[in-house]
């Protein structure tokens, strides 16, 4: 499903070249539930944003479902994000002035799905994460755990094969963390590939594989 060959990413910062990750080689199969761990600044987020097609590697090759993503243009990347990838973030990243139902519809708007179908599918997704009684609530009216559940509904509403999650429980209490990890388990059981970054060692037993990063490189876990 995911093949990374010699992936490196450098940033230019005030005329200094900073290397974020170097020579990453990894394969992730369909249906895997992969945790990425490592200290701050080890390049986890950079790797995740490349896996999520949010940025391109400076060098190396990224093949996603047989497509060489690292050679695509912006609009093709947008299409892959729209149809093949669902994102879950630590800070939820819901749009504050929209209701839960409107937030969940957003990926479908960009996928060109008509309003009637959008509404039906958004409701199904919210029901699936246990938010059937919160359609019209705005993010400010929801708790952190509830917001993250809406965000997960948004991530799965276009039926992506790959879920990318950046510290999905990082802002949540124990109870909500458990809710979220249960949802991820369900998605994993449903055959989706999940890659997530976490600092929470309690979550590692749920993963089928753990990738450890240090100084921009993968090390043995």
């Amino acid at each position, binding site marked *: 499903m995911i093949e990374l060959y010699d992936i490196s990413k450098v940033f230019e910062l005030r005329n200094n070249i900073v290397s974020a990750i170097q020579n990453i080689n990894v394969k992730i199969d369909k249906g895997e539930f992969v945790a990425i761990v490592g200290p701050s600044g080890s390049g986890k987020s950079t790797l995740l*944003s490349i896996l999520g097609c949010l*940025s391109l590697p400076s060098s190396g090759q990224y093949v996603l479902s047989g497509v060489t993503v690292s050679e695509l243009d912006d*609009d093709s990347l*947008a299409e892959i*994000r729209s149809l093949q990838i669902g994102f879950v*973030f630590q800070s939820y*990243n819901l749009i504050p002035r929209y209701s839960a139902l409107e937030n969940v519809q*957003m990926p479908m708007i*960009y996928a060109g799905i008509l309003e009637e179908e959008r509404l039906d599918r958004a409701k199904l997704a919210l029901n699936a994460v246990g938010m059937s009684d919160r359609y019209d609530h705005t993010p400010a009216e929801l708790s952190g755990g509830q917001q993250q559940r809406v965000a997960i509904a948004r991530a799965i509403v276009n039926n992506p094969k790959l879920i990318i999650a950046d510290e999905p429980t990082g802002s949540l209490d124990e109870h909500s963390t458990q809710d979220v990890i249960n949802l991820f388990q369900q998605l994993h059981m449903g055959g989706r590939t999940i890659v997530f970054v976490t600092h929470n060692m309690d979550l590692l037993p749920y993963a089928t594989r753990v990738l450890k990063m240090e100084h921009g490189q993968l090390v043995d876990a």
Partner: protein
Amino acid sequence: MRNFLENLKQALGAIKQNRLRTLMSIAGIAFGIASVVTVGVISQGGRDYIYSELETYGLNSIWVYREWEEDNPFAKVREGSGITNDDYAAMKKKICCPSVMMFSPSVYPEEWMKNLRVGNSFNNSSVEGVDVDYLKINNDSIEKGRNFRKDDIVRKKHVAIIGFQLKENLFGSTNPIGKSLHMGDVKFTVIGVLKFKNREFLNAIGATQGFEVNERMLIPYTSYQQIMGTKDIHTMRAEAMSGAVVNKALDEIIRLLHRRHGNRYTYQTESMLAWIETTNDVLGMVTLIGVVSAVVSLFVGGVGVFNIMSSSVIERTREIGIRKALGARKADIMLQFLMESTYISVIGGIAGIVLSWFVLVSLIFFADFTISSAWIFLSAAIFVSTVVGLLAGYFPAKHAASLSPSDALRFEN
């Protein structure tokens, strides 16, 4: 459609965020649009109004008469007006003057104001001897009764067509047709009354030199010549085939007169061209002032919209990142911000239309002013404000669209 409403909601949100700046830019665009609409409607209305008065002379009218002031003060002053009935007959042959549609002589004594009497009512009026086509050339029409006929001219009948006000002054509300009227000892029978002519504006600027157009009396030029004992025509009136050939028509008439009189007279000519040019110059000036003030305020308003959109893009960098992560393409983001800037600008445009509506309504109230083709200026206002919105939003929107999704998501505000 949902996207439209969604973007409208967002534009209104942006307005709330930057209330003062937004209102200033809306005001700038509103003033710009208001000057476009107001000046447009006023200069169009002014043009219509002035033209309607110029038309009371016939826009293609021309006048030819003898120049009495000789260049050489020692030259023997010749007798006569320099235009005779024979000249008139020669002009009427098509071969003379192809640029002229029709002629009418105008015959009047040096003292052209005459005391007219009906019973005990008197009126001091200008009296002019004319031919059948005079009414058409001078854009006159008959309110009541009839025009002259060939027969009236040939048989030098004592019949008269009188101005609307002259009829009011001498006959009051009674029907004047068939009634008689005295010019000194000479008796005329009224056969027609002319429609009222409005020359209020031209009177106001002194262009009519006190000539009361509605107190005229017209009689057959042959009759007047007989009364005056002359064969002279004092002014040759004519109508050119079109506005474009007015000067050519004048040339043709002058050439014929010179040929027939062996260059013994010099002639003066007049046409409406100078008036039309002056009118266009003045209205062009008004339009120019309006355009300049419109451009300045639209520029200021446009810069304001640009400013708002730029800060809106910065404030919503994270949102842009989220949208991109969810699959928005560059074009989606670009369109969203362009729509927002256009909404703000069009709100300004609508405010401008409302503003100019107030100005125009008070104009209609205080001045006798009619609005024509206002819808052209309304659609122009909407069009211009849309264009300003698109221009002002272009660079901020382009910047928003080109943000990298991973950078935009990292952005904290």
